[in-house]
């Protein structure tokens, strides 16, 4: 009854099996599958990706700090997953629609989230940080896997309209165990819906190692549903972008869904409430430090002579500015008035809510009078 927890391959080996364009030491590798998808990516674009990741890491650190200082109820760090998020999200078209989980700070950043948007939900002010319809990103989803079905349904709509868009959904390695994620693959395959599944395999679901969810590579699951998949080094921003371009092109061409497993690592705790020292081998963490996604593209660019200290400093300055704005927005947030608790339950008039609001209004007023 106890799970056989030996993974099919140890984590390092996992990663070696993944598609890759830049080695951990910054060497550019040839990869006939992926190369064509990033042939146009020049050093300027790479620098932009690097800058994105620097900013994202800073946003993430600021989130943690704000939580520690009591300004946020919770924060779910994405430290370590910058390449997986930025690489894939930067491959999207503005018309695509994203259905994320709760850890995709980098994805919503890439989609144009404003500084306050990163904290609004975690501070407990609102249920969604931005206008989902305008940003074309669904609000963060806490129910594990639920959003994958939403993406498929959205893609069914796209297909019906023969529109050129793609729906994209992000989820974790743990999520692959949920019925919903598997049903999403069933529906996506049946309807040949233009949807891309992006699984960030960060090796952990809170305290549970990925081997408890699947002793078989996660990218191996999708083909059994009739969905082509690719396993990519999730700490290689260029490979992530290439893989995502492959998947998007596949879906956009009317060939149906595609699946990407980005093998990466959650460097931080699950959330600020978590204490990974209770369950995680520090050596594992150490080994992943050598695969840092930002350092990797930095060495590559340095090797090309395409990035200098000044450019790097500029990225960090931008990051600091973002963090300052984020903090200022956060501290400046004003909680809605008590009656807001009734706002938006229904789209149309509702006698039950109206009555409760009236009663509660009278109740609040009773303090003023009495």
């Amino acid at each position, binding site marked *: 009854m106890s799970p056989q927890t030996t993974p099919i391959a140890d984590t390092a080996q996992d990663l070696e099996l993944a598609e890759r364009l830049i080695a951990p030491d910054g060497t550019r590798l040839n990869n006939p599958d992926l190369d064509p998808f990033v042939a146009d990516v020049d050093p300027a674009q790479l620098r932009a990706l690097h800058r994105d990741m620097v900013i994202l890491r800073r946003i993430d650190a600021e989130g943690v700090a704000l939580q520690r200082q009591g300004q946020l109820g919770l924060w779910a760090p994405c430290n370590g997953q910058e390449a997986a998020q930025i690489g894939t999200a930067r491959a999207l078209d503005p018309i695509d*629609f994203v*259905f994320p989980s709760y850890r995709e700070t980098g994805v919503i950043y890439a989609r144009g989230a404003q500084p306050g948007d990163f904290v609004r939900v975690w501070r407990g002010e*609102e*249920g*969604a940080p931005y*206008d*989902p*319809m305008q940003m074309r990103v*669904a*609000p963060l989803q806490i*129910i594990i896997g*639920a959003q*994958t*079905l*939403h*993406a*498929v*349904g*959205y*893609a*069914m*709509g*796209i297909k*019906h309209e023969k529109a050129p868009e793609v*729906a994209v959904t992000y989820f974790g390695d743990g999520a692959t165990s949920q*019925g*919903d994620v598997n*049903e*999403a693959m*069933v*529906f996506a395959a*049946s309807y040949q819906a233009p949807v891309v599944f992006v699984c960030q395999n960060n090796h952990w679901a809170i305290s549970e190692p990925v081997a408890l969810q699947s002793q078989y590579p996660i990218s191996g699951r999708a083909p059994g549903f009739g969905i082509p998949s690719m396993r990519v080094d999730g700490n290689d921003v260029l490979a992530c972008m290439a893989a995502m371009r492959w998947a998007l092109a596949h879906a956009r061409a009317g060939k149906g869904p595609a699946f990407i497993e980005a093998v990466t690592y959650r460097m931080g705790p699950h959330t600020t409430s978590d204490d990974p020292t209770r369950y995680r081998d520090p050596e594992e963490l150490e080994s992943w430090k050598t695969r840092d996604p930002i350092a990797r593209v930095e060495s590559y660019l340095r090797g090309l002579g395409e990035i200098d200290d000044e450019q790097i400093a500029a990225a960090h300055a931008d990051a600091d500015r973002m963090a300052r704005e984020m903090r200022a927005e956060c501290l400046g947030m004003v909680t809605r008035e008590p009656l807001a608790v009734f*706002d*938006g*339950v*229904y*789209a*149309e008039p*509702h*006698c*039950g*809510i109206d009555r409760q609001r009236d009663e509660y209004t009278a109740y609040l007023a009773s303090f003023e009078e009495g």
Partner: protein
Amino acid sequence: MTQLALGKALNAGLRKAMQDDDKVVIMGEDIGKLGGVFRITDGLLDEFGAARVIDTPLAESGIVGTAVGLAYRGYRPVVEIQFDGFVYPAFDQIVSQVAKLHYRTQGRVKMPITIRIPWAGGIGAAEHHSESPEAYFVHTAGLRVIAVSNPQDAYRCLQQVIASDDPVIFFEPKRLYHHKGEVDLDGSLADAPPMGLAHIVRQGTDATILTCGAMVSTALDAASAAEDEGLSLEVIDLRSLSPIDYDTVATAVRRTGRVVVAHEASREAGVAAEVIASITERCFEYLEAAPVRVTGHDVPYPPAKLEKFHLPDLDRILDAVDRVLDRPNSLTGAES
């Protein structure tokens, strides 16, 4: 006016809704070629094509979850759950997504989803085919719940529900699918009474029976039988179970002061409890006797041969009427 069975009225209502708005898509198991196991979607595949009449894989969470995605995309999905007992695999998507997305996004994302559920018992069916799960949805903020009892309401309310920007769980009393009634197919929705209103089906002065779905006709039968004994019973079809039209209900209750609430669902924390608690809150000083519930027992729905001992019938309603009228009844002399 046309004579139509309730099932055919639903079919006509669906067809009308799909004609009126091409964002209406219907989805479910076996709703295409087969026209649904109850034939409620009969002919719609031919008329609207497979892109709008979507036979789905066999997975209720998948059906409702993809309906959410279609709603994001601007569609108005109408989902058929094949039988009442098969809605539970979709419960998470309904409670955590369908019901909450509008609130979560402060109204920026609309969920105009209709979930049609062939509902309740009395047809001698196998397990899980006779459930009355309405209380679960009534207790879920963010949903509306409508239950119809006759062809006219079926035709009209289904269209209203589909046109509503809120998610609605729509209960269809499956044992009445073949029951016929007059339906006005031409009346405009704009002139129709809003879907949220309770309906006083029969006026009466001695006691008020509140009920819904297939039990409305049972209650009417009980009222006719009671008339022979000189009793005047009022019958109200709640129709909207969430929100409940307490204005209509309270006015009636204040008139008679005696209330019976009847439904097929089991009793504990069922909708009748909600109705009685609210009536008591609103009309306490008008109540002449404790309101009484007539419901299914607090047991899982029993095997078909036993269902007649489970489902409230005319006699059980009349016994309850005797209780609220302080007439001799089955519990006379029993301790409470």
